[in-house]
């Protein structure tokens, strides 16, 4: 048992730190603290992706999530200059209890489905057969590209249009002057 734990120590260390950071995201009162903990969570998830033979996705996760989306979050939080939030958490015992029950129900169902979905597949052989670690990472990315641009090319084009729509929408939203409470 001990050798098993030590050789897979990295997973437990990463998993525990992920859960701790995720918990801090939700429970820290100062929003910028939680934003920074969310960045650390994303870096931890990128580390996990790295071990699941998805190195390119780990890189994309760091570039897109940790490097762009979270910068926007931190920038917006700084613009608002939100100090320490005092009543950050919803009050009310009964509603809190109901919420907890619903979350427990959903997660319990999820874990039940996972565990009973047949025996664990164990550690699968890496997705591609070729040589040492660095070339397999490249080979996985090439297969990913092959799949992305042949089988899923329609999704790829639709996402391009989606990004255009979101760009125009964001600019339009930032230009709204009127509104029910607008002080003329």
């Amino acid at each position, binding site marked *: 048992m001990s050798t098993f734990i030590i050789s897979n120590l990295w997973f437990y260390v990463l998993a525990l730190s992920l859960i701790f950071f995720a918990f801090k995201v939700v429970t820290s009162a100062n929003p*910028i603290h939680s934003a*920074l903990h969310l*960045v650390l969570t994303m870096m931890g998830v*990128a580390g996990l992706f790295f071990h699941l033979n998805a*190195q*390119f996705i780990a*890189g*994309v996760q*760091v*570039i897109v999530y*940790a*490097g*762009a989306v979270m*910068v926007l979050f*931190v*920038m917006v939080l*700084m*613009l608002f200059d939100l100090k320490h939030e005092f009543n950050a958490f919803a009050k009310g015992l009964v509603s809190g209890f109901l919420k907890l029950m619903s979350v427990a129900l959903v997660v319990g169902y999820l874990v039940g489905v996972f565990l009973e979905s047949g025996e664990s597949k164990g550690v699968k052989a890496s997705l591609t057969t070729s040589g040492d*670690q*660095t*070339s*397999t*990472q*490249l080979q996985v*990315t090439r297969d990913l590209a092959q799949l992305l641009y042949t089988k899923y090319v329609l999704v790829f084009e639709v996402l391009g249009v989606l990004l255009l729509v979101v760009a125009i929408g964001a600019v339009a939203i930032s230009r709204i002057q009127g509104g029910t409470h607008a002080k003329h």
Partner: protein
Amino acid sequence: MGSDIFEFSINGLKIIIIFMMMVQIVPLLVWVERRGSAYIQNRFGPNRVGPLGLTQLLADAVKFLTKEEFVPQGSYKFFFYLAPVVALIPAALAFGAIPLSIPIQVEAFTMMGRNWGPYTFPFQSFELGLGVVFVLGASSLAAYALLLAGYGSNNKYSLFGALRASAQTISYELSMGLSIVGVLLVYNTFNFTEMVAQQSGPLAFKFLGNDLLISWLPNWGIFYQPLGAILLFAAFFAETNRLPFDLPEAEGELVAGYHTEYGGFKMNMFYIGEYGHMLVASALMTTFFFGGYTLYPWLTPESLNQALSSFSPTQASLITAFSLHLVFLVKVLFFLWIFIHVRWTLPRFRYDQLMDLGWKTMLPWSLVNAIVTAVIIVLMRSHWS
């Protein structure tokens, strides 16, 4: 990191030395900058402290350590102290991923009664299959140090300086990403070592299906991507907040932008971050466009191995590794000198000119560069027979 204690300790030592190389480049570059700017402006620069002012660097180091520990009143202490450390990490990670020379092969030898197997030590901190993606990810984290410093020092002007600096950094990351797409089109790999290997031979490319060879020119990336090189180099200036893109620190009321409240060693760490980014930028330019650690006809791994056949294999690989490393350093220092030279010759941009340049000229041009490269590659490499 290593199968046994010897390999583990050598790799650990190598990682620390490479990071220390980046940290030690700061006093050297500060000295070169002060002497260089003095030379450009026809004055002497520091020459009081020791010969040619060289020990000025030690004086600066001591000064940094003995400065007063100042934390502005009412600031967020945790962010204030976190920002300089976060400023160091992206540059250190990015510099660790770039190969500085060919790996060192060490033969099996016996020491202390045990025979240690043959090793190969990669001449870089960590050997990654997707080096380019890792470096882009690391450099995209640079915006956090600016935002934290600006927010932590509870000074409304440094907050604006931080917002401006991070807005500039992210808007130039777009054209940097696009010009790197152009480089990827030429090399078809994310791995730096393969890129340098492709650049070590004579200039050879497929022209309308049949191969063309120009033997007196090295196969460097600059001949395939001239526009991409210019755009990437300009984007690096903006990434490191160097002149002519250093407006967030230069506005009248912003005084020193996001690091107004920092003094002493914390300020020095911001400098280490900035000069570290400069070092990474020059290392990337040499690896992408100027053949990394190879110099085609004379100093390539193959030619050196033949020349050193008289030594034992371990010594031969050691000598070739370090001589190629010197080649790499010379090229990097050349680009560092250009960074410094530009700082003292060009005036700085106004903020709206700076953002217009980023969004309205460099981004479209790097887009055009990527498209034209792709079309030419499809034209040239598909076989017409």
